[in-house]
């Protein structure tokens, strides 16, 4: 049992180090994406995750003792040597095994470029979040969002809610100030803001004024 484990470990760490490192990097990236607080750190973790998967693909395409997937001059079917012996011929099986597998390389080549494009997109979103909330830390952002949410739900306890609904009404009143209806909407809005106890009446009042405005037009 113990020796089996030893052989297993030996095989894992000496002959398959590429696979082990791929798993380790993937886990590092995954942990960073879940646990890190800063969005930029999360994005770096995402990139590490991505490169780990690319590492996996490229390691699968490796052949022992093979060269890079570009034809050697003597193997090139359209090279000078091939024309000397006759028309272009496909490579034999032995010659095929002397080249690395090009398919994973192609898949990963496009993945890298698309990866940097998506990284740029994510960074643009980060900048937009920073412009809106002044932070890219996850916990601060969550706290701010919760505060905003709470203030919009319970306007009595939080003065911020009052200010958020009041300018809306007043601006509407201003806009329709030239209309004759403007005089009727303004007192209503005042009344509603004065007699505000729950959320529902406020909404009704603003809706009513909206309707009136719409009717007048």
């Amino acid at each position, binding site marked *: 049992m113990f020796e089996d484990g030893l052989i297993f470990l030996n095989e894992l760490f000496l002959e398959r180090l590429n696979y082990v490192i791929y*798993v380790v990097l993937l886990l590092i990236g995954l942990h960073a994406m879940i*646990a890190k607080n800063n969005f930029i750190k999360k994005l770096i973790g995402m990139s590490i995750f991505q490169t780990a998967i690319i590492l996996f693909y490229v390691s699968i395409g490796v052949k022992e003792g093979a060269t890079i997937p*570009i034809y050697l001059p003597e193997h090139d*079917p*359209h090279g000078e040597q091939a024309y000397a012996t006759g028309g272009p011929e496909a490579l034999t099986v032995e010659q095929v095994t002397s080249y690395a597998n*090009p*398919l994973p390389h192609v898949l990963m080549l496009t993945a890298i470029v698309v990866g940097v*494009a998506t990284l*740029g997109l994510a960074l643009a979103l980060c900048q937009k979040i920073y412009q809106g909330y002044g932070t890219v830390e996850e916990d601060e952002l969550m706290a701010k969002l919760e505060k905003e949410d709470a203030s919009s739900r319970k306007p009595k306890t939080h003065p911020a809610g009052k200010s958020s609904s009041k300018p809306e009404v007043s601006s509407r009143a201003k806009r329709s100030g030239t209309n004759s209806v403007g005089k009727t909407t303004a007192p209503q809005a005042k009344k509603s803001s004065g007699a505000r106890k729950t959320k529902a009446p406020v909404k009704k009042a603003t809706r009513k004024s909206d309707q009136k405005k719409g009717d007048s037009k």
Partner: protein
Amino acid sequence: MKNTSLIPVVLVGFLLFYASTDFPEWGDPQSPASSSPVSSHFIAKTGVDTEVPNMVTAVLADYRGFDTMLETVVVFIAGMAVLAILRNFSRKKPVKRGHEVSVEPDLIVTNTVRLVVPVIQIFSFYVLAHGHVSPGGGFQGGVLMGASFILIALSWDLERALTRFPINRCMVVAALGILLYAGIGVLSMALGGEFLDYAELEKVLPVSREMARYHAMLGVEIGVGFTVTAIMFALYANLSSRGRLEGGL
């Protein structure tokens, strides 16, 4: 949060380590991925079919041309999205950033960049056009070209780079690249083949079937290079200036 995140990480790690014992031996030529008929076909037949010595370029631009076209479209869409998210047209003075220093562009740096940028651009053309015979191709050449414009923007300021490559032209060039790519596909369709079946281009090009594929691949790579150049520069220009397209880094 930090400790609970360890649970999925450990779980995934355990599963992957368990699975990694079933992976093929490292560097085994008989592994499923390497001995599959698809990759063997690519290695054996690329030179016969297309006259391109670099298999990666051939597979990228010819055998899997549809895939690459849509990858280019993905890059294009990402650039458009960054422009749409960040672009700021307001004339108000921006809020000063915390560690901003406004200095004259450095004499040594600007002169070095003046020397180096043409070399980089010529090298990017070389990489793009020589990608059939050596490592390289549209993506690499395009990124190098975009990097040369980014270098100008870094050493002087963004306006100077934008006088050479305005953002409107950037987007036009990006769209032109995809148009070139798809246009070659449609052209081969019009000549009686399928979409992106470059061999049909022998009817308009004075070369053999294999050489027609070679030249069509070059055209496709140029299209990819256009798009990637423009999008890389647009990414930098928008991200470094918060969408205002003015001022240095």
